[in-house]
């Protein structure tokens, strides 16, 4: 009996500690990009506001995709929020793998999300992921080298302008190459770049009956142009250069031009990282006079997998991380150049942000991209640098390997296109499209 009170007290204490220990924790899968790292740093503020803890699982991009796909398809339920892109969102949403984001609050102002981003992250009009940051692609060039060559970069250049500028700035004896572009195999690396280039040359992946189009003259023209441009004015070994490799080359002052993700603008203009920060200009991605520019559209977005037990808390976090208030908080602490770009209309109506040198060109590039109408000829698919069908990642990775073999001098343009044609048609037939 004497033990009664202490026993009750200690049981109560144990219960309290137990409940404290099981306080709600969200597990978030993400990639190690600068803006995400910043978000991790600020997530303690979210915990303070809501009492919800946050655990981060940061993975390499391809591992993340594999990991997250396995988790969704086996109903593993390991993650409450996942960082995914514009390619996966509509496909996964259609499969019922994601929780629709229709419970967003009025204060969140979902209509403020840039229309291109909102469309790309929806399926049948339902939003399945909220953009954390968005990007298109554009030309980044060295203003000092251009003026030394007596040239001026138009705001909306053609591929001919790019070629002329590359020729003028190319100076391999001093380790400066006219233009740096992606050649690395992988659907999201070199595959994305050659696809948007082909779009601007009037090529397309499929006709309206899902027949591969690599046997058409537009593809040969696009690929031959790219290979010739890079062999003449590109850095050696460009067949293995992706985003990070080219970023490193550009920051060291070894590229006259670099056409890539708009998000790179904040890196190459940051004096702490870039030796050419003071002399970078921006222009729209080039076209070929056919009415389609070679710029893509992408978003890193937060989505809730259908297997989670904590959908409400997850939605709360997504609202916090992709809100106007989050952008203002980052701006107040780290300056406007460091806020996550390309997600909200209101950001581009903020006068302070428009003073950032690359802000307007980023917005113009995003607005110039139309995922529902990406090519000169009509296509049965949505997506600019990708085709939003589940089979695409596998097929395009193989196709980009064929193309990289051309860049490395291992086969001819014609041979690569013939291989790409055959393997794409085979895969599409096996998948039941043809």
């Amino acid at each position, binding site marked *: 009996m004497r033990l009664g009170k202490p026993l009750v007290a200690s049981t109560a204490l144990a219960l309290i500690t137990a409940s404290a220990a099981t306080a709600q924790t969200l*597990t978030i*899968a993400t*990639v*190690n*990009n*600068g803006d995400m*790292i910043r978000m*991790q*740093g600020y997530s303690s503020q979210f915990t303070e506001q809501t009492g919800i803890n946050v*655990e*981060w*699982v*940061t*993975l*390499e*991009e391809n*591992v993340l995709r*594999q*990991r997250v796909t*396995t988790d969704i*398809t*086996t*109903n*593993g*339920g*390991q*993650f409450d929020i996942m960082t995914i892109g514009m390619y996966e969102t509509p496909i996964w949403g259609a499969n019922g793998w994601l929780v629709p984001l229709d419970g967003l609050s009025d204060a969140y102002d979902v209509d403020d999300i840039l229309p291109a981003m909102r469309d790309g992250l929806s399926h049948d009009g339902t939003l399945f992921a909220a953009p954390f940051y968005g990007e298109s692609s554009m030309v980044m060039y060295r203003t000092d080298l251009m003026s030394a060559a007596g040239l001026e970069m138009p705001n909306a250049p053609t591929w001919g302008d790019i070629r002329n500028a590359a020729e003028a700035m190319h100076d391999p004896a001093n*380790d400066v190459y006219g233009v740096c572009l992606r050649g690395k195999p992988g659907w*999201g690396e070199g595959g994305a770049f050659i696809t948007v280039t082909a779009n601007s040359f009037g090529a397309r992946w499929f006709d309206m009956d899902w027949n591969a189009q690599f046997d058409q003259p537009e593809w040969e023209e696009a690929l031959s142009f790219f290979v010739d441009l890079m062999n003449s004015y590109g850095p050696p070994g460009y067949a293995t250069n992706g*985003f*990070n490799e080219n*970023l*490193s080359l550009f*920051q*060291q002052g*070894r590229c006259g031009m670099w056409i890539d*993700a708009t*998000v*790179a603008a904040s*890196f190459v203009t940051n004096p*702490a*990282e*870039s*030796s050419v920060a003071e002399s970078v200009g921006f222009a729209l991605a080039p076209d070929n006079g056919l009415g389609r520019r070679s710029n893509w559209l992408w978003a890193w977005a937060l989505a809730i997998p259908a297997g989670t037990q904590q959908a409400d808390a997850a939605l709360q976090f997504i609202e916090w991380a992709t809100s106007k208030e989050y952008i203002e908080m980052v701006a107040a602490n780290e300056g406007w150049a460091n806020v996550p770009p390309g997600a909200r209309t209101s950001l581009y109506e903020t006068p302070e942000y428009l003073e950032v040198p690359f802000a307007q060109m980023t917005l113009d590039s995003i607005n110039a991209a139309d995922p529902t109408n990406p090519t000169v000829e009509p296509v049965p698919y949505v997506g600019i640098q990708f085709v939003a069908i589940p089979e695409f990642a596998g097929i395009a990775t193989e196709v980009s390997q064929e193309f990289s073999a051309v860049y490395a001098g291992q086969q001819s343009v014609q041979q690569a296109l013939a291989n790409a044609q055959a393997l794409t048609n085979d895969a599409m037939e096996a998948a039941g499209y043809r």
Partner: protein
Amino acid sequence: MARAVTTRRKLATTALAWGIGLLIFFPIFWTILTSFKTEAQAINNPPLFWGFDFTLENYTVVQERSNYMRFLWNSVIIAGGSTVLGILVAVPAAWSMAFVPSRRTKDILLWMLSTKMLPAVGVLYPISLLFVQFGLLDTRVGLILVLMLINLPIMVWMLYTYFKEIPGEILEAARMDGAGLKEEILFVLTPMAIPGIASTVLLSIILAWNEAFWTLNLTAARAAPLTAFIASYSSPEGLFYAKLSAASTMAIAPILILGWFSQKQLVRGLTFGAVK
């Protein structure tokens, strides 16, 4: 004359061995060196061997952003646990195959090895489904089991070749002196096979420590070991080579030190038999 040739040859082989050794060690050396540079210096061209500002900032950032101790502890438990469990199964298995072989022993050995010929990703879905079914996702127990099973064929093979070289007569003599099966394995076989068991243990620890497919695919936040710690510093859009190098250095340091101190056993186990 003969002596001169020998010296020259000796010099040549020594130089060659050093050359190969340095070549193999260079990537590790470069990783460690890069971890003390700033991000801008890490991508400098030409590469900087000296003359850079030595900084510990990357280590500070990595410490702030990640809970290193939790990853380390998970690695220790998973590598240690799978090794202990593996040895408990592999020693009796190798003993029976080496000393009481049947007609099918050779086939079984080959069959065991053949499981290593399938790429891991081939069984990703079955294993994931089993893990979901048994609630083993993101648990250390689950990883211990999987890594033990993955390394088991190699452990059995190593111990088997080792035990094969122990003369059966010694064990026979022990049996004639009245030793039972337990005594035979524990007091006669094991002491003779200690170097072999030690190198098997070391190899198993190293393999489990470095395993980066299952440890990435079957974990999330709780059971993730150092492989996940390294992976979290790789970036698709951004250059963080110096921080990645710092994370890699922190991840390989424990196993590098263990390998350094036990290299004698390791080399002996990998190159010699039990009785020479």
